[in-house]
């Protein structure tokens, strides 16, 4: 995180009991051409990150395979811990190969996934659109659909799919207050604790699961048995070991 110290011109740090004035707020105004002005308070020095995993799982269709439909595959974006990404992502747009009917597929609610049948491998473009208080810009990801496994060991199996997943984290460097308040306690989001207690509007977290609709999280997803477990511990260990080796040499 950047270490800038900002003295906001308008707000002073006068902490009274009932009214804790926010100290680290930057007021940005998005002015359209019309008179409408949305006041969005942003938090500096706070970064909200959403760990995600995106990728494809492809099953060979075996006896049912035809020339043009040899595999059934699913492309998806899920939370790294299989939590519901609907708090952050409004919709996901999957751009498929032009040979598909309606190659632009929009998924409006979690889980953000798409299944199709086909025979060829190609690059899928995934565009993530966030809720209004999260971010106005979209984020683009690219993933190569893999149908055939690396090792050519024998015939394909209908039971074992070809799984390619990529771990990454979506970082929001200057989150808005509302966004922060909304996702503060959500398991899908990594939110650092603010050192100065800021009086944020208490938001009732709307639990999608309570609404008896389709679940947004992927914990009990039918394909969840194939999901990879990405643990940073392994990588951290390797890096620490490497640094241990290099560090002393440079001192």
């Amino acid at each position, binding site marked *: 995180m950047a270490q800038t110290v900002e003295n906001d011109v308008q707000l002073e740090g006068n902490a009274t009991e009932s009214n804790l004035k926010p100290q680290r707020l930057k007021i940005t105004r998005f002015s359209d051409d019309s008179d409408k002005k949305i006041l969005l308070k942003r938090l500096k020095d706070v970064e909200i990150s959403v760990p995600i995993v995106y990728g494809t799982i492809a099953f060979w269709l075996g006896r049912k395979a035809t020339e043009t439909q040899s595999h059934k595959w699913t492309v998806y974006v899920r939370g790294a811990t299989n939590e519901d990404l609907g708090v952050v992502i409004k919709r996901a747009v999957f751009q498929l190969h032009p040979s598909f009917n309606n190659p632009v597929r929009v998924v409006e609610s979690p889980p953000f996934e798409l299944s199709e049948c086909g025979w060829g491998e190609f690059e899928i473009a995934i565009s993530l659109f966030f809720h209004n208080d999260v971010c106005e810009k979209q984020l683009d990801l690219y993933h190569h659909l893999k149908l055939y496994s690396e090792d050519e060991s024998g015939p394909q199996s209908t039971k074992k799919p070809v799984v390619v997943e990529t771990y990454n984290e*979506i970082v929001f460097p200057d989150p808005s207050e509302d966004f922060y308040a909304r996702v503060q306690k959500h398991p899908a989001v990594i939110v650092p604790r603010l050192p100065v207690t800021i009086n944020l509007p208490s938001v009732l977290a709307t639990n999608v699961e309570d609404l008896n609709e389709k679940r947004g999280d992927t914990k009990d997803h039918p394909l969840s048995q194939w999901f990879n477990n990405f643990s*940073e511990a392994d990588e951290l260990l390797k890096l620490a070991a490497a640094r241990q080796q290099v560090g002393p*040499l440079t001192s």
Partner: protein
Amino acid sequence: MDAKDILGLPKNALPIQEKKSKPPKESQRKPDGISREVYALTGGLAPLMPAVDVNQLKRKAQSDNEKITWQWLPFTNSARKDSLQLYHWVRVVNGIPPTGDYSFAKYNKSVDVLKYTDEEYEKYLTDPAWTKEETDQLFDLCERFDLRFIVVADRFPSSKTVEELKDRYYSVSRAILIARALSPGDVATHPLVKETYNASQETERKRALNLLLSHTKQQERKDVEVLAQAKKISEARKASKASEESELPVLSDIGSLGADKATADTVNPSTNSQIPSSSITAPVSETASVIASLRMLRVYLRSYALEQMVQAASSSAGLRTIKRVEQTLQDLGVNLKPKVPTKAVCAEHLELRKEILTLLNLQKQLQYKEAEGSSFREGSYTETPGTPPKQQSLRAADLDRTFTPDSLSIGGERFGKREQKRKGPAPSSPAQSKRPRKYKASD
């Protein structure tokens, strides 16, 4: 051969084609009007556009109605002060020799060096640093050598620099002009009056040019690096300023721009500091600008952020160095791009890369110093004491070996970076007992 089969080409096509094209070329080589050898000068082929009108070549002399003869005649040169008479060939048309001055006389230009009288000197031109004789000599030389000050400086009896001579000449001429002018307005446009000669500026300028010329390659490289960094920082600043200004109205502008300036200012001194410490401060300033540019994106992937930071950190390194860093990472069993790019992993990865970069730089500098040291030793064998350089070179070789990440049996050999040229007691024991400080920078 197989390729041709696959392509379906006839195998003997090409040689036959070559033979066929040659005979038609031979028959084309019959130009009219000019001889064959001359024609061959143009490349042996007819040009696309006839450059030389072949008909004109032989005919031109014939169609003249005048009679041209060439005669060996005397001539005089008006540019000469003596009346020397020389001879040369002259093109005589119909028996009439050409008139007019010698054609090169017009090129005899000289500079109008002003001449002052003694009274004028007394009145306007006296100067504490210059005697009248010196000034007279100066002006005489200037006239003889057409203001070629280098030559004048050479011939000037008492040693004065070119700048001093120029200064004196220009100020005297200027003073005379102004004094002689009927009104100041007349001479205001004269170049001597309009522009004054600034001797100190000239010396400075020439000194700077000399410095620039004598820059070693290393210095040039460093200059380029610093300029590149400065450019990057100013661009990042501009980018952040531009996008900030487009979003924020005047109210919050004060706040954000103030913060922006604060970061920019903290960045600036670090880059303006001496080049030696740039190896440490440069990464700080670069990551700051990367962070600023990432902020502007509003949303980004952590892997992308890491990429940008890695690029910024290795911006000062060449392609080969970067490849070596990657090779080292692979040797250590670390993924070039982390499989699980969390915040902690990315931070560690970046630090590791930076450390490897520092390591490689150190190794390189060590090699340089070794090379220097060995060349010194060969050059001035008598000067340097016998044993210490030898010890140092041995240790340098040891250092080189221990730096390879594979052989990590460092044991107790913790060497600090020592200058090759350091004289005195061999530094081996202090190095082992003292914990070496973190390497700061090269000189």
